[in-house]
């Protein structure tokens, strides 16, 4: 039974067969890369000015300012 199933779940199996220590190291690396991506995305969003039509006229805000804005 196990043998019949093995080829189907090959990706899963290869993930399981990997030595846990090295796998964790890889995950760590990926996480660090992802963190860099997040920082880049945040910086990019930071300078993206949105146009808002308020009673007093047009205001330019980035998305973070918009979300935390009172009123």
């Amino acid at each position, binding site marked *: 039974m196990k043998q019949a199933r093995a080829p189907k779940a090959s990706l899963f199996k290869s993930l399981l067969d990997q030595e846990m220590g090295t796998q964790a190291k890889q995950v*760590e690396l990926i996480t660090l890369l992802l963190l860099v991506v997040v920082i880049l995305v945040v910086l990019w969003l930071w300078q993206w000015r949105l146009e808002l039509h308020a009673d007093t006229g047009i205001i330019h805000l980035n998305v973070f300012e918009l979300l935390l804005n009172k009123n």
Partner: protein
Amino acid sequence: MRQRLRVFIIYFKLLLPYWDKSLLSLVCVGLVVLFSLATPLITKVLIDYVYPARDLPLLSFLVLFSLLIFIFNVLFSDISSYLDTFIHQTLSIDLRKKFFTHLLRLPLGFHYEKQVGDLLVRVTNDIDVIVDTVAEALPVIIKTIMQLAALLAICLMIDVNLTLLAFVGIPVYFIQTKFFASRFEEIQDRTQRSESAVYTFYQEKMSHVKTIKSFNQEIYETDRLIDKLKNLFKLARENLFMSLFNSFFDASLITVWTAFLTWYGGYRVITGHISIGEVMAILMYLGQIHQPFMDFGTVYKSVVKSFVSINRLEEIMQAEPEAYQDTKTYLLFDIDGEIIFDRISFRYPDSDEYILKDVSFVAPPGEVTAICGASGAGKSTIIDLILRFIDASEGTIFIDNYGIKQVSLMTLRANISIVSQDVIIFSGTIRENLQYGCKVVDKDKMVGATKAAEIHDFILQLPKGYDTQIGEGGLALSGGQRQRLSIARALYRDVKILVLDEATSALDSITEAKIFDNIKDRLKQKTVLMITHRPSSLKNANKIYVISDNKLTESGSFDDLISQQGEFYKFYQAQLQESDEQMAEKVELLRLKKKIAESEKNKPSLPIKLSNLEKQVLHLYYEDKKTYAKIGQEVGLEAYEVARVRKSAWEKLEQLKELEIS
């Protein structure tokens, strides 16, 4: 409280080796917390600005933005789960390894006191509880604290009044959580204890099924088990009731509080203090608090429960192991194997009844020294002392002039091969059992050992020969077969000192005689200490010591002891059930033999003389009762050299005494 702090310090120490992964996981969790703040804020902007202003581009932008956040959220929370699981498993293995090694290294005295079932629960349940706590509960606690802080900050920014009122509920919640946690802790303590008792019970009964059957006590033992289980079920029910109360309180508190805040939020909107979007956002945040709070309660309770486990583990971890790591010791390599017992007295630490009193003897290399005595006389205790399973209360044991307390424990035990009274065979193949503890595999030597122990033919006749599975789940061996296997195992180790503790008790005397004949030559290169009742095996001994009333009462060769007509004589007679006349004949025969032997060697023997140093040492030792170290200081020798001098002097004296008698 200080106790709690101590436990948390232990937990953080456990996590220390994984600080990088823990930190990363924490960063991921922090991001997840931040991301989860976004949705209510987006809702707020949608309600307060985007819908009223009909701003389609901004709507699209915000939806894309929340998608992005959602993706990041999932990614980081998965990564943090992975890292936590990794820490969980590695920690679990580490802890088990550390605990098991420690357990095996604890002195035997410790193992006598503890019950196996109890230790089993500690190695399994308690370690699980701790690992779960450290690797799962701690992250949840930290996450909850971060989440609360973030929610508090952002809600305060939106509306101070509503937020303050909302957060007033928190201390109330904490107080009730704490109340229940201490109840749970107490129940947990009793549960673990009760579980230990059940394990111990199972363990003991399952390993003595034969005895239970032969006394027809199957039903009785089952009833006793049920009694013990009933206690456990009762505790489980107590736990359930407590949980029910607890979740009822939890739910009521949160429901009432949410209802009140909904009303007050609406009131703030109606009176124009805050916008609809803002009250929606705050209520959404409060909804978010709900879950972590519930989690926090559960986790806090499990942490408190784990205090019980950590104390149970600590209790064992703090027990002093045997002195394996002691570096200030001699290494015993390439020894002659002379064993000297120098005025040894022994009693178990918690009793004041001496099991051995003032026992002195020498087991010289190349000879078989036998110890015989009634059962319970303390024969096996002598062996435990040599292997340092226990330490003498008074006196010193020397091996090759080294006091064994000054010798590294590993090398001491490496030089001694033992066939113990109760033969333990591990489950595995015969080969594995024979090679237990030997790194180098030598097939010829192994076959030599099994042949000598008269078990080779039996093994060959098994279908799988040396690869036959024995022990639990394998072939069941008879007492005699196991004993022969055990003798073969001891011979295979081939070290200088061989200890036989009633090693042939389950063998017939013909097989026994064959084995002794087989190993006669091997024994000449070893120091053999043999414990036995059997007169037939005692004939193989060069010297016999008789132990009774905690003391060595007689010594001499087999023939000597018989002619002396003392303890040993009576013992021997009782064993063989010989009549008084038969014994008298035997003694007469021995006397004649001795006379002939003496007349044959009737040459004048060399006078035996003690040197001045020997006289001095003897005087200081026996008259002034000084220790070797003190005498050493006076005569300018090392302590072990003094021991050597004293011993040779002692032997000379004994020879002199013998001459005087004859």
